């Protein structure tokens, strides 16, 4: 190899300038071509593993209901929404909470049990088995409900002008529960009542808004890590980036257990700023993903006037 390199070093002496010029140009063209084009991509072979997907919340003081059992799908393939929900008849679903079987409501495609009235500070274990893609899957998840205490104090917050610093919700926490999530959604969200002269993007037209209406419509706020044992009330300011429409808003607050917290804080943000993914914290044993959590819910309203 070394002798070859030496020969290369003496290239010009042996073959003359013309040959050297040809080789130089050919090498350059080769380099340019190597650095050209579009790198091919195929992620169809990303390893898909079938899972039981759970979206289940237990609310203290209510019976068990609205539990969705679904399946996941491979990336990049069209999803037939009629196969999204797992049903007892099609997928051999068996679901229990603390050993009590859940019933299936074919209208809402959800599971419920009138026998279980969810209490404060109680532990509930969901156990589900189902056939997905020909595999018999099984999962369990346990939630401990918050203690009694959470409530929104100013349920009718009042009317405000846009970007008012006075918009604030006050709530009392549940002892021992340090995570609170608030859904802030306008009762009506259309391009007609959108706040076009907002402080963020005032050049939007109705077509831009219509394209991303959901993103403007559904907003949330989180209070976490707070001292819930002091017995003091907390103020949650409603900010201008959470209100994009004129009109009445409904705020639903949740005092969530640790499963609720882990899901909300980790599952929707698995893609990092540089595009890579990491694992969320999903509290399931076996073949389950999603959320099985408990909460105390309360509601408030406010209005943004023109």
């Amino acid at each position: 190899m070394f002798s070859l390199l030496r020969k290369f070093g003496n290239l010009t002496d042996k073959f003359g300038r013309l040959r050297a010029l040809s080789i130089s140009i050919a090498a350059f063209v080769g380099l340019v071509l190597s650095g050209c084009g579009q790198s091919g991509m195929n992620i169809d072979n990303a390893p898909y593993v079938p899972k039981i997907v759970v979206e289940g919340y237990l609310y203290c003081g209510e019976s068990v209901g609205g539990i969705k059992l679904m399946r996941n799908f491979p990336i990049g393939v069209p999803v037939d929404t009629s196969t999204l929900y797992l049903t007892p008849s099609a997928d051999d679903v068996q679901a229990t909470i603390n050993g009590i079987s859940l019933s299936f409501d074919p209208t809402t495609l959800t599971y419920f049990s009138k026998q279980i009235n969810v209490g404060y500070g109680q532990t509930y274990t969901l156990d589900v088995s189902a056939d997905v893609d020909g595999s018999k899957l099984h999962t369990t998840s346990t939630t401990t409900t918050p203690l009694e205490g959470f409530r929104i104090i100013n349920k009718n917050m009042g009317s405000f002008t846009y970007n008012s610093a006075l918009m604030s919700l006050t709530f009392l926490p549940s002892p021992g529960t340090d995570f609170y999530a608030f859904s802030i959604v306008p009762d009506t969200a259309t391009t007609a009542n959108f706040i076009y002269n907002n402080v963020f993007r005032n050049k939007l037209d109705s077509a831009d808004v219509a394209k991303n209406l959901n993103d403007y419509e559904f907003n949330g706020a989180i209070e976490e890590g707070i001292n819930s044992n002091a017995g003091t009330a907390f103020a949650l300011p409603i900010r201008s980036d959470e209100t994009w429409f004129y009109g009445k808003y409904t705020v639903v607050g949740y005092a969530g257990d640790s499963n609720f917290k882990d899901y909300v804080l980790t599952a929707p943000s698995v893609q990092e700023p540089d595009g890579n993914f990491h694992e969320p914290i999903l509290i399931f044993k076996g073949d389950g993903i999603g959320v099985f959590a408990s909460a105390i819910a309360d509601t408030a309203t406010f209005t943004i006037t023109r």
Partner: protein
Amino acid sequence: MRRSRATTHSITSLGEVLIICLTLVSSLSAQQEKRATVSGFVYDKSTGETLIGATVFFKGTRLGSMTNNNGYFVISDVPVGEDTLDVSYLGYDRFMKRISVRPGGGRLLKISLIPKAYTIGEVLVTADSLSMAERAFKRPISTLELSQSQVNAIPKFIEPDLLRALESLPGITPISDFSSALYIRGGTPDQNLYLIDGAEIYEPEHAFGIFSTFNTDAIKRVMVSKGGFGAQYGDRLSSVIDVTELDGNTKKLEANANISLIAASATVQVPVSSFGSIAGSFRRTYIDQTYAKFIKDFPNYYFDDGNLTGKFQLDDRDNLTLSYFGSEDNLNYQFDKSSAQSPILNYNWGNNVASIKWDHIFGSKLLSDFLGSYSGFVSNFGLENLQAFNERNTISNYTLSESLRYYASNNTTLRFGAAYQKVGITYNLSTSDGAINFDGPTHKITGYAILSWQPDPLWDIEAGLRFEQFNSDKTFTHIDPRVAVKYRLSGTSSLKFATGIYHQYMDSVDRLFFASIWLPAGKYIDNSAATHFILGYDKQLGNIFELEANAYYKSYSNIDIYNQNLGAQAVPSYYLPNGNPVYTSDQNVFLNGNGKSFGLELLLRKDEGAVTGWVGYALSRTEYTFPAINQGNMFIPRQDRTSVINLVLNGDIGDILTGKWNEPVRKTASSWLLGLNFIFTTGQPITVPASVYFVNTLPAWDSYGSANQNLPNYQLYPGPIDNYRLPDYARLDLSITWKRDYGTWSLAPYLQIFNLGNRKNVWFIRYSSKSSNGEIVQNVKPVYMLPFLPSIGVTIKF
């Protein structure tokens, strides 16, 4: 795992080793009385700058030395009589002079070398085989050195950039086009020790990580050790990047200026009387005064950096160097400039590094380097008109160090030193929902001893011990052995081996486009450790090429990765009166695990002749095992690249095209210079989602998606960590410079093209979905890195 707790016994053992070494050195020294010592400095004749790494030998013998960072050399055990001293340095005329060596010696020589391009029209000699082979042998294993001209010759990404230039070397890779952070042999950027004139620097990057803070016009030399570094360096697991700034021209006023599309810079070197010089450099971007004025929504942003170095020769034996380096970034961005109420984002960060260095020569055999330095970093991030959000991150490092080098004989050198560092780290974040107040004062005491011994001309053995005691809210103490052995296989080839244990006591939370946050080891973060094994082979091929091959294995224990789910796992330390939490500890910030890197690197360099450059190839693999990641299974981290090919070529276009690659450098009044930089890497590992599922983020959002075709409740579930590889990366950069010399000044307009082939290299993958006719259609799109990007500029020198 080689962490150990300090005990009285182990400290005593270190003392015993030092005493044994000193006794050995003294006895060896006593045998040398009949011989003489020759010592002195080697300078650049045109500027008066000392030359680092020049080889100084007595002709026809292996009796010689290499200049150190101060340009100083010592040759002991020189037989009394007349002999010819042969001095050479890359890019300079070889110097030979007959000198008379008298018993005892003690005479300080001052040798000035003439740069090759200094004399117009002359045909200059090329380096002789001895100097090239000796240069390779003297160089520590896995160590590369680049001069300012070599760094500047590599095609630039808009601005000259030291760190991006280093990415063209095998074993050194970036994570993407948008970052200049270096991943060296599988290590992460926080495992690299950055030194500027001996002072440590923590955030070597500007502009959201895109540009580095080092102004290449102010650099004299950069040394990169990719592993196996000696006991004089510590507190990092992977590598050392040691930047030496220009001393300044002691002969005449020298200046140059550079203007590019985004920045202007100037460097001035001024002699001070007959005993010193001052060199200053300043660079500032001006996009805030140009693009931001005319382009809507363009952020008001600029960065600047500068340095000032004064070097003064107090007498023949004392040199004093005062050095300052500073950098600053400022961003002000208003979401809607027409609205006074619109939120404003303010972000500024910067380094301030100052050092004082006093070099003293005791006799001719004992050298002392005293260094006092301060290195500070501050970043402030804030929002106005939205909610209370202010982040402040500071690092302050005060260092006092003393290094001694004793040339006991021509084949025995002892180096030893000690340092004290006080490092303070603060991180404060205040929001309407709570605060983070982290304050991490630390102290570090280090000491080292290195014995270099050449039992015969074929062998060069270096054995060192490094003592480190790091105190934060916990004390860590270690003694790390380091060994390096070199063996001459022939006159043109050598074999090298190095091994060592390394510890690190600080880790950084790396944030894309934002300054990293450093955290010290302590109660919740254990120190990290690594063990290096490196085998190297150097071969000189004729008088043209130099081949370097390195195989390495590096194991890591207790290394840290930022916990991406920290938000759900942070534990409040106490509460504010309003009940909001305050976090003061670094608990759960990192996930902890072990790993290893191994690989093979080949580098073929051509440093002499009309056309210079190198071809590099690296084959490597890095594996991590973290209990909390990938379900405890091994995974390949993102910095892993199986294969990397680098090609760098610089020279006169005419010489390149006509094949005059090996002819001597000639200086002409006008020339067209070409620079090429090609890189190919295997695609980087990335975690991709293995499946999609549909669960609302909040229970009340059940009607989400009903308004239009979007499906906001679309959630992605990741597959095995970093189990997928992005497509291979390739890029060719080109620079064309027309250089015109007008005698007392020169002009060099240039064109730089980044990604000449406009290759669409994938950065990451974006996912979205829409529902249509009872089907959910998923959309998977690659997001590409930087496209074809030309830039122009001009350099003026006088």
